[in-house]
């Protein structure tokens, strides 16, 4: 990240006014900054770096899977197994979970609230460095320990790895989790305490409701990870049987602990995405978001219900039938708020003054992927069908649609939506749309064939496979190349825009939330005078100004 940052600190937007990018110079002014905006940019660079790393592993895996056996990369079993573990772990813990809250949450949340910064700026910087430390620790532990357990670290397989590798790796996850807890606490306090005048809870932008709900999950779920690490360590050092059957422990207990954290974590991944899509659909439709209260409450409902469904990962584990029935039922209750959100977004678009911008294309792509991801979740929530589909490529496809669709497309949508604000410049609109379409199509070509393979019985985490599955694997790999190309294109377009793009106005889309009231890019302190909040989706007072290619407010 450093090269991008330093150049930006020195040269980038040549705006005359003082903004957060020009406010201070030099690498130190970035590394020691307490400005939430700069911390957000640092998170962005770091998490995108993690995405690229995880993505390279994904492409290597998909290339190997073109054929059964070692394939054109002449990969060994163990290399393949370590690589899919690294791919999953890096994507989940270093990209999907931290990316949106860390990057966009940090950048946008205080400005949306009309605040000068988060409640605890120093803690915020500490969270960032804790994240960096955790990331390095985690990746080192994984590589040094040759961890090949998959990102789920199931016992007893994982405790048979040499040199306590898994304890170190889970410790890494826990350090990362601590960073999440700090960020979550910071956001919760900021939202409670630093809302601008006029911003009642129900005048809060939906992105903030989503981040708020996410923060609640982070604070409540992450400690369970700590307990798990502690139990693993106690078992190893004191030989008390907890998870290890040779000591009298129960290996399935680990799965309960793991999913008690990791299922809520799925909502840490998807809720911020929901929030972004709500913003994009509202602003770019130039119409009040349909069912605002419902969307706001459903984020909270999903956050809380998300704690009660972990057992749906254990239908084939030998868990009691009664437990499975209860977990299945609660899982279905989450389906309904998710479905209604989609209908609300569509209803917002209906009879709107819709602007067919790049963010809108990403929002549409998100809806496509989330509908497919969500509906295929019904197959897995239905116990009888899950028995057949569990641990096959169907599941792999399902969670990629939900988690990658949820995070990646929402992140892109959010970046394209807020980029003019973040860097004061526009990207190329045409290439933006091309990128959105390529990512959406590439994604579907990659993962749709996996539903078919999975239903036909292809198990996941297979180094080699029966010849009958090859056609689907080839299609999936070609899709992955397209997706990879689309992602690089989309980021390149943003990066070029940040340096060379045409200057953006303060409010290029006509958003009514507070971040559009400060200049682009925002000044160091965000607002000279604390603004007053109104309905975040009432656009009546905003009219288009051709000279600046932006919208100006005429409020009496």
């Amino acid at each position, binding site marked *: 990240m450093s090269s991008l940052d330093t150049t930006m600190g020195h040269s980038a937007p040549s705006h005359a006014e003082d903004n957060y990018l020009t406010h201070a110079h030099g690498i130190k002014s970035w590394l020691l900054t307490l400005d939430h905006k700069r911390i957000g940019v640092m998170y962005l660079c770091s998490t995108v770096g993690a995405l690229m790393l995880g993505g390279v592993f994904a492409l290597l895996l998909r290339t190997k899977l073109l054929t059964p056996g070692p394939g054109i990369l002449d990969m060994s*079993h163990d290399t393949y*197994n370590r690589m899919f573990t690294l791919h999953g772990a890096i994507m989940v813990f270093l990209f999907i979970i931290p990316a949106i809250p860390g990057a966009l949450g940090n950048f946008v949340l205080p400005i949306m609230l009309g605040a000068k910064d988060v409640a605890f700026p120093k803690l915020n910087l500490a969270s960032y460095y804790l994240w960096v430390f955790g990331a390095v620790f985690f990746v080192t532990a994984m590589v040094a320990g040759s961890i090949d357990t*998959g990102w789920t670290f*199931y016992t*007893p*397989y994982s405790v*048979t790895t040499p040199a306590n590798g898994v304890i170190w790796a889970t410790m890494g996850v826990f350090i990362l989790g601590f960073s999440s807890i700090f960020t979550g606490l910071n956001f919760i306090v900021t939202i409670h305490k630093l809302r601008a005048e006029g911003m009642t809870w129900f005048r809060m932008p939906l992105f903030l409701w989503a981040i708020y709900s996410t923060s609640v999950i982070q604070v409540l779920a992450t400690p369970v990870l700590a307990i798990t690490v502690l139990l693993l360590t106690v078992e190893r050092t004191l030989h008390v049987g907890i998870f290890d059957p*040779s000591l*009298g422990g129960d*290996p399935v207990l680990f799965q309960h602990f793991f999913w008690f954290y990791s299922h809520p974590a799925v909502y840490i991944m998807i809720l911020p995405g929901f929030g972004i899509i709500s913003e994009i659909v509202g602003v770019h*439709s*130039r*119409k009040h978001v*349909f069912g605002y209260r*419902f969307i706001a409450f459903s984020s909270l409902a999903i956050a809380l219900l998300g704690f009660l469904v972990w057992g749906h990962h254990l*239908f084939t*584990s*030998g868990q009691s039938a009664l437990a*499975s029935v209860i977990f*299945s039922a609660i899982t*279905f*209750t989450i389906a*309904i708020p998710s479905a*209604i959100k989609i209908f609300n977004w*569509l*209803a917002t*678009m*209906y009879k*709107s*003054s*819709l*602007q*067919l911008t790049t963010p809108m294309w990403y929002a549409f792509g998100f*809806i*496509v992927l989330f509908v*497919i991801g969500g509906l*295929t979740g*019904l197959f897995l929530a*239905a116990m*009888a*069908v*899950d*028995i*057949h589909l569990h*641990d*096959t490529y169907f599941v792999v496809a399902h969670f990629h649609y939900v988690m990658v669709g949820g995070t990646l497309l929402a992140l892109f949508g959010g970046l394209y939506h807020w980029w003019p604000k973040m860097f004061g410049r526009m990207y190329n609109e045409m290439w933006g749309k091309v990128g959105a379409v390529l990512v959406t199509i590439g994604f579907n070509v990659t993962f749709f064939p996996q539903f*078919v393979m999975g*239903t*036909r*019985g292809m*198990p996941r985490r297979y*180094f080699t496979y029966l*010849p*009958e599955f090859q056609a689907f694997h080839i299609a999936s790999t070609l899709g992955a190349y397209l997706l990879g190309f689309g992602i690089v294109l989309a980021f390149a377009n943003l990066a070029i825009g940040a340096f060379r793009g045409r200057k953006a106005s303060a409010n290029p889309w*006509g958003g009514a939330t507070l971040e559009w009231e400060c200049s682009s890019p925002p000044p160091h302190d965000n607002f000279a005078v604390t603004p007053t909040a109104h309905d975040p989706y009432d*656009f*009546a007072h*905003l*009219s288009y100004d*051709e000279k600046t290619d932006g919208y100006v407010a005429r409020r009496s």
Partner: protein
Amino acid sequence: MNTLAFSLLTQAVTAGSEATYWFPPQASTTAADIDWIYYFIYWISVFFTVLIIAAGLWFMIKFRSKKNAPPAAAGHNTALEVTWTVVPAILCVFIFYFGLTGYMDTHTPPADSYVVNVTGVKWAWSFTYPDGTVSDTLHVPVNRPVRLVMSSEDVIHSLFIPAFRTKQDVVPGRYTEEWFEANQVGEFDIFCTEYCGTKHSEMLSKVVVHAEGDFTKWLAQAGNIHERMSPVEAGELLVKQRGCLQCHSLDGSPATGPTWKGIWGRNEKLADGSSLTVDENYVRTSILQPQAQVVAGYGPVMPTFQGKLKDRDITAIIEYFKTLK
């Protein structure tokens, strides 16, 4: 790469006649029910996916506006909101109910089921029949409920038979169960679906469904290998069936355990520094008390076969070893 798994991988699958675009053949009594629930959800999903994508695209084209168009008026429609809450809720209740009843059917084995014991070990399955016969492929009679009582000797595995739509984790330290009633004669794939290390993807086997009467014939034959084959052939079969080849190679290549190429009469260095010549008694000890004399350079990881291989079996293996030049 080794024998059984590899031959299974390279040989085209003999899928039954009724494989469809989505599914492998329906070869068990419950498969049709599971597929029915799947298709029930499938068509609901197709309907909503098409509806939502079409509506989204249509709105994007139809309501596309100029930048200076006035913002649109907020909408509200209680009837619509109630509909799109209640309809998915009702559908979810049905899906939940079908999923539940289907699950109960596939998890309540009939009392008169034929029981086969299953052991999972990295990376092979072994199936033990009531008369003590052991095989590395699962043999079952058609039209008779079969209950698998499963356990693992090391890590968690999972026994998945796609053609029967059935799967169950095999967990160390406890027994788990899985039952089915095959209704079609033929051979179907068995996969391990819980990640279990290096050769997880080669932990494959087959279930062979025999026609009425054929199964008992097979069992009688399989049960007395020593009568129907020479000791060398019996030894060769045993080492395949009991998973020895997961750790020992025949071609001289290194593996978890020493290769068996040229094992007979070989001079072996032991971990304690002594050395000896491989003879009948050494092989016998190696199989029954593997930890007693550990070969230098290898870990003490070989499981004991005490009680699992009889004297006659070991004699056969010894005869087989003599042929491995």
